[in-house]
Every structure is written in structure tokens, then in C-alpha cells.
């Protein structure tokens, strides 16, 4: 871990100001991903702004009938909130399937959205990685790709986004609220928040350099049957091989988002109009770029969708 200086911000305005004041500054909240990466010098901020005490830890109703989740609401609290459990069960389920209780007790809503990939080549600083070291190449391509992306990949990067929470938020059409140092606020639909790798896999979101996430807004409840199916190599405390967030409606207006497939939570709205699992899967996976190691993900997605359709019909 490179040496850095530390300060604690007490208001969102002060936090964004501090972020903009010095180069190579990062926010730290839960720290569960940032410190992991700082220890390996994959992240090397020179200044940390501790935003844990900004008070952005409330979940409040919105005038539209949705919920506004403070950026610093811990994963545990979000999953356990009775409104989330009742009206957005897919989100609660996704959160509870992620990481461990200890990590969920620290990890925040905004931090979870900003999680970085678990690609093992990204994590090993002796290997080339365009995400960690732009222009150095991608060691993952041609290497151990079993857990890596099959959708929206590029010549530069085949990493996946590791979050479960974000997959559920994608299916719920969450909106990410931000504030900039000049006080400007933005509302970014989650569909536009995470980026595909393209030639710049190191730029993972559309968040501006000095912007801070203040909240995530959920639209009014969708109703329907909420399912989060996470497939993994051990029963708990493992990243998804693939995951499916589904909201199934009696009128057939189903929604699906997928984890473990791409550099971002994967959702193909067009595919949701299809009436069978196989047709949805085909449309979702159109253009898949697989390797012999990860081609099974297409079969797995198809099967999980089939099972979800069956569950909804039952």
C-alpha cells in the first residue's frame, strides 16, 4: 500500500470539494474492495477522503412511490430494510447472496456499484492488464477464462463486473444520483452507469472524475415474482459463475438482468418480450463471444431461465 494522506469529510459538499482539491484522491467508505486493491497497489491513491460520516445512510420514500437509498447504506441494512424485503425482494436476495455477513456489514451501496472486477489477471500485478495498466495488454485473453465475460467483451478486456446488487438494481431500473463539486447533481439510469470495456476498460462507469454518488433511487415497486438465482462453485462466499435477477409478471412483462456475463450487469430489454426461456436466452446471448472454458455459461443461462419460467408458471 502506497503512503497516502487521510482526511474525514463531514458533509457531501465538503467531500466532493476534497475530492477535487487534490489529484489521485479517492473516497473511502466500506473499504472492502478499495483496501484490498490498495494492499496490492492496484489502487494507489495519494489521498483518501473518508466519507463514512456524511449521513448518507438513510432509505427514504420518494414522491413517486419509490425509495431513495443513501450512498452509504450498508449492504446488510439495505437487504434487511423491510420495504426492500417486501417490495424489492430481488434486491434483498441479491445482496444476501453476495460476499459474507462481515463484508456486507461494511460494504456500501455506492461502493458496491463501483466494485472492480475479480479477474485474476487484474489482481496479479506481474501480468499485463489493460484495466489496471492501460495499454499493457490483456493476460486473460487466451488464459484462464472460465469465470470471465462472454458478452460485450473487447480485444482489450474480458473482465466481468462482480456485483450481485448491481444486477438486481439493473433489473429494477435504479437511478444513480450524483453531485459534483460545483453542486450540480445528475441522475444516471443504471443502464448508462456501467460501461463496456471497449478500448478503455480502465474507465468502468460514466461517473465524472470528481463526482460523488449520493443515492440510488428505485422506481415504484414493480410487483410480480422476484427471483435472484446465483450459481456458484461453493454454497456461499463465492462470486457468481452466473446470476440471474428476474421479475416475473403475470402479464408476461418479465424483466431479466444477468451477472457473470459481462463487464456490466447485462440486460437486453428487447429479449424480455420473448415468451419462452429459450427465446429469451437466445436474444440475451446474441453475439456471445465464448471460449471453450466459459461456453457453458450460455447453457447455464438457458437452463436457469427455463427454471425461472417454470417457477413463475407454477
Amino acid at each position: 500500500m502506497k503512503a497516502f494522506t487521510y482526511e474525514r469529510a463531514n458533509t457531501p459538499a465538503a467531500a466532493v470539494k476534497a475530492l477535487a482539491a487534490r489529484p489521485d484522491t479517492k473516497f473511502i467508505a466500506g473499504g472492502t474492495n478499495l483496501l484490498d486493491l490498495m494492499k496490492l497497489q492496484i489502487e494507489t491513491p495519494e489521498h483518501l477522503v473518508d466519507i463514512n460520516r456524511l449521513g448518507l445512510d438513510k432509505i427514504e420514500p420518494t414522491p413517486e412511490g419509490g425509495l431513495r437509498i443513501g450512498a452509504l447504506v450498508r449492504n446488510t441494512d439495505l437487504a434487511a430494510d423491510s420495504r426492500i424485503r417486501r417490495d424489492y425482494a430481488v434486491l434483498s436476495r441479491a445482496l444476501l447472496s453476495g460476499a459474507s455477513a462481515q463484508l456486507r456489514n461494511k460494504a456500501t451501496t455506492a461502493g458496491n456499484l463501483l466494485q472492480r472486477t475479480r479477474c485474476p489477471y487484474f489482481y496479479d500485478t506481474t501480468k499485463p492488464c489493460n484495466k489496471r495498466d492501460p495499454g499493457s495488454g490483456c493476460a486473460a485473453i487466451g488464459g484462464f477464462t472460465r469465470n470471465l465475460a462472454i458478452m460485450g467483451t473487447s480485444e482489450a478486456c474480458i473482465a466481468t463486473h462482480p456485483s450481485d446488487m448491481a444486477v438486481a438494481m439493473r433489473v429494477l431500473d435504479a437511478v444513480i444520483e450524483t453531485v459534483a463539486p460545483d453542486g450540480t447533481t445528475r441522475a444516471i439510469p443504471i443502464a448508462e452507469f456501467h460501461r463496456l470495456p471497449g478500448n478503455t476498460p480502465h474507465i468502468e462507469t460514466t461517473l465524472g472524475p470528481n463526482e460523488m454518488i449520493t443515492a440510488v433511487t428505485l422506481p415504484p415497486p414493480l410487483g410480480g415474482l422476484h427471483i435472484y438465482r446465483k450459481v456458484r462453485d461453493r454454497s456461499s462466499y463465492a462470486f457468481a459463475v452466473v446470476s440471474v435477477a428476474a421479475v416475473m409478471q403475470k402479464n408476461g412483462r418479465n424483466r431479466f438482468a444477468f451477472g457473470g456475463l459481462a463487464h456490466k450487469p447485462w440486460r437486453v430489454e428487447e429479449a424480455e418480450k420473448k415468451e419462452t426461456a429459450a427465446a429469451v436466452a437466445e436474444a440475451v446471448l446474441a453475439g456471445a463471444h465464448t471460449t471453450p472454458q466459459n461456453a457453458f455459461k450460455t447453457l447455464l443461462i438457458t437452463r436457469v431461465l427455463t427454471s425461472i419460467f417454470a417457477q413463475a408458471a407454477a
Partner: protein
Amino acid sequence: MKFDTPALDNPIDRTRVIGRPTDRIDGPAKVTGTAPYAYERNDVAPNAAYGWIVGTGISTGRIVRIHTKEAEAARGVLAVVTYENAGKLAKAKAHTARMLAGPDVQHYDQAVALVVAETFEQARAAAKLVRVEYAPNKGRFDLAAEKENAIKKDSQVGPADTATGDFPAAFARAAVTVDATYSTPDQSQSMMEPHATIAAWNGDELSLWTSNQMIAWAVRDTAETLLIAPEKIHVSSPYIGGGFGAKLWVRADAIMAALGARAAKRPVKVALSRPQIPNNTTHRPATIQRVRIGAGKDGRIDAIAHESWSGDLPDGDIETAAFQTRLLYGGANRMTAHRLATLHLGEGNAMRAPGEAVGHLALEVAMDELAEKLGIDPVQLRILNDIQHDPEKGPERPFSSRKLVECLTVGAERFGWAKRNPKPGQVRDGDWLVGMGVASAFRNSPTQDSAARVGVDAKGLITVETDMTDIGTGSYTIIAQTAAELMGVPIERITVKLGDSKAPVSSGSGGQWGANSSTSGVYAACMKLRGELAKKAGFNVNEAVFEDGQIRAGGRNISLGEAAGPDGLTVEDKIEFGDMQKKFAQASFGAHFVEVGVNAVTGETRVRRMSGVFAAGRILNPKAARSQVIGAMTMGVGAALMEELVVDKRFGYFVNHDLAEYHIPVHADIPNQEVHFLEELDDKSSPMKAKGVGELGICGAGAAVANAIYNATGVRLRDYPLTLDKVLEGLPSIV
């Protein structure tokens, strides 16, 4: 004390303390966080500086230049040690690769430098400033590709090849045959405490407070590496956060800490970081195994062959995967063979039940395949082929004790094996396909000479000292139980001091020999102490009874303290095992029964039930022994379902080198585990009449899982681990 004839009735048979499920005597210290592990020895080295190891970034080649100036100039840095300034070093005979690279690099993440600084944070950060230029070589990393180049090499524990009768002819004429090839991946011991050492020099004398299973080997190998006399080295390792073979040897943490302390002129503490461990230290090597079995229609095996290919660095050792096949089942015509390929991955070495753990993953699935072809119940097939003597050496070498058949029958009964549907893919519970599997468990039960010092003071308090280690095995407790039994005192009066090279040399912890051997060493010392106390008190030792803190004979009694006298009395003795292992095949046995659910949608396997029955001689402490067995069973589940160090064959290293990516079982993976020990005393094994139990539980556990998956799904998998992607291909469509 020599042990070269079967044990007679002896004071251990009283079993007032031994054989009881005593709570661990080190338990309160461990559960309150007050048992100090190596890195925590602030008591002995309060001013230790911090060392951080820099690993090589290539797998094989040569160091061209090491740039250390930037690191040396960094805040807090006290020293940077590399091969250029470390002084003369040698490779210990027990090490396959050197602990410090340079100028040659032998494997990825081999230590190339140690940065010593005032604080941990400074050392870790400065380590990133060490820059190394390499001239890489093209290495070999692919076992399957190197199989053809593999050579015959004997292991330290036995010959590479054996043959009896005429296997090819018998196999050719057999009515029913199985010929199957299996593969097992590289695995990581992944004990929870990383390798860690504090090193301090006092003149030319070196102290290592470390985490090590084998104290005497640690002294020897440190001496050989640093080219100093073993007498100058003190090693202390009273608490060890798991080893599973990874800590059989001093590793880079200890050697680099010693070099760092010499350079910094201060004690230095070094722990390997978790991501360094899989590539820097040892691992269980991958294997490719071919098993051929030929049987008559009655199920009797007439031909059995087991061949194994594994890889290691040049001058490395084979993984003895076919060793159990030499002894487990009968059959007149047999052969085993091991071949070793050169691979430039890290050092292949022991991990819990080396050889047998992966050997069972092949042999015991092959038996399941044979049972199915024969149409014989797999439990029955194993019973049919039981043999009470070494099948290679003949009836002149009987087993010292062997209750495999009883393990299988009792196990089948307890588990409800009769309810198993022999036809695969028939039982369903919601989304889950349910199946049952069985496997035999076999693990050789070697013994090692072991010494101890036992003293009694004027108050009758007893102290046992031996360099034996407790790696979670329960050594503290069973040694205390042994001494309490023999000296006739309650266990509270025994103090056990372990893991210090100033104490007599014990068996150490490895090869599942530790419990039986080290307590036998304590037995020897206690018997000697009894003799001397009796003599001092004027008793005939053969008549003297040691009970309730007293020595009694001829209507007279005297307290132990009184007999010891005001200065106390201390003796030392050693158990020396003669040729009983030659005369008798000595092994422990068991039978695993597993029920799995395989998700019909995703192919995920989850273990629903596990049950095992084991015969391992006298069970010295059923509570600790059970814990050993359930732990090993769990590691077997890991081997079957998830554990794999993935080799990147381009760069030549294990890619998934941390605990997020190398999966070991978590709580949610493991159901209730039932363990049952059969009554057994083995008078040929030791005066304790015990056998090894610590590694038995992993042998066959994974195979039982694999067989259960087959029973659940009809998908026969032969390449471990049996991850969902492999199962998925064979599952029926779901709608």
C-alpha cells in the same frame, strides 16, 4: 525403549484418561485469543522490524539485475536482502527449490528479495520499489503435454513401480474390466495461518519463532541453508495455525527472516502474504491416473493396475498416488507405476495424505465403475475383495489389524445404504437429483522414533517436554492424557511443553504418524520415570501401582512428589520402532458414505449427508480424533467439488492464488458429519496400540462424493474437481 515385539498388557490399557473425549487442554487459550502464534511473539522479540518478501515475476529464467536503491531509500527501510548481499547460501536437501532466487529463478513467486523496515506498512510499500530485470526461459507447465517425457523415479517412501503375477495376461482374460483415466489438479494446503517467522540473532546463534510441523527438520534444513551448525539454531513453534503438509519444511518466511535479521541487526518478523502462498510454497501436485481392474463375474479381482503421472521441479518427487492400490484389495496379478515429469511450477510436496488422498479419487471411482459393470453392490464388491495380508508380499506379511469389512458393513447400516437406488438418476427432491456414494478409506500408518523428557517435581506436578508439535491435531491433549494415565495423576497435574528444539526430538507432525509415535515416546519416558521413582522409593517397579498421585506396592504408598524428592526427578527416553512395519502391513481403514444433491438446473453439487466408520487402533481421544476425521472429510469434499490451483500454461503459475479464487469449503458446504470409530487395539503398532487417524478421513471422502454424483445423475466424471460446468453437460434437459 525399543518397540520390536507386539505390545503386551500395559498401564495404558487402564484407559482412565487415555481414550476419553477430554476437552483440549489448549482450548481455553485458543478460544480467548491468548495462544500466541509465531508472528505474535512480541514477548520474545518486542523490537522486531518487519520484513516483506518480494516474489519473482517470472516462472523460470535468470535475474539480470535487481534494482534496490529506491527501496533502500524509502522511509523506514532498514535493509533489502537479495542473493547479491545475502552471503553464501545452500539448498537444503529437503528443499527442491531454493528459498531465495538468484541468479536463477526456479518458479513464479520464488523469493527474490526481502525488504526490512520499521513498520509493516513501510516494508510492504517499499517492496513494490524493488525492480528486477529478468531473462526468462521457456518453462514446462503442462502435465498432460509432458506425460510422454516423464521418467521413473522412486519416492523417498517407496519404489516407483511394483508388480506381482502377470497383470497384462490376467487383465486380458478377465470377464469384466474397467480401464479408466482420471485427473486431479494441483491443490493448495491453504491452512489458515500463513507461514510466519520471527528471527533473531544473538552473535552467531539464531532463534526462529516460527510455524512449523517438524522442529528437528526445521533446525536441520535451516542449518543446511544458512551453512551454520545446527547447534546454533533454536526453533520454537508452540502454536501452529494449521499445516496440512505445508509447514513440514522451513520455508522462505523463516530463511528470509533470518537473513533480514542479520542484515538489519535486529529481530525481523516475516509472514507470507496470502496471495504469495500458493506459488511461493509447496502444493499437492496434479496427477493423471490410469486404473485398470479385471474381475471375474463373481466380482473377485484378478488383475489390478494403477499408474500415476505427476510433475515437479527438476530433482523433485513423485506424488505416490498408486501406493494404496498396492495394499487395499486382493488380486493375484497386479502392478503399480509412477512417472515424474519436469514442470516449472512451484515445489510439489506433501499435502494431507500425500498419494492416498488423490489415489483414492481414482481407484475408488474405478471400483464404483467396476461394481456397476458387474451389477454388484459397490459395498459388496469391496467386501469381496478384502484381503488380510499385503497382497504384493503375500501371507507372510499380514496386516497388523484390518477392519475394512466391518467399516463397510457398519457404515452401510448406519447410513441407510440399503435405501440407495442402484440405478443412477432416479431420485429427485424438488430441483435436486439425489444420489449416494461409497468409498473405502485406506491410509498407511507409519511410525517415527520419538523422544520425550518427563519430570516430576516435589509437589508431584508433572512436566512433559518434547519437540512434538500440535497443528490442531490435539497433541497437547493426548500427550497430557498419556502422561496422566501412566503416572496415575489427574490431567490437570500435567504440563505439556511442545514445539521447542531444546526438547527431545519427536516424530513431529506429518504422515499421520504424530499421535501414535509421539505418545509412544511419552510412554517410553513415563515408563522410565516410573522405574526410577519406584527404585528411589525402594519399590519393585513391576509391582508398583501408580494411582491417585501415589506409588503403591507391598502395602506401602508414597506420593509422587515425595518419591521424586525435593529437587524432583526428570528422565528422558525415546521410542525406537524396530522392524514391526516390515513384518506387518500397518494401515488404518474406513468407509465413507455420502449423499449429494445435484441441482438439476445448474449442476451445482451440494453434500447432504456424510457418514464414516473408521478403524484406527486405539482412539486416544475420541473428541479430537473425530475432529481430525471430519476436517479431513471436508477437505475431501473440497477436492471433489472445488479445489484446483489453475495453471496458466503460458506464464507458468497458479492463477487463482488467493482464498477468494481458490475455493475451499465454507460452513454452508458441509452438512452434519457422522463419525463412528470401531473398537480396535493394534498391539503391533506401538505400546499405545493406536494407529494414524489424522489423514485417514480424506482418503476416499472425495471419491464417495464423485460416486454419489454419478448415482444422482448418471454423469460419470473423471476430471477433478467436479464443478458444475462438467456436470452440466451430462444433465438431462429440464423441460
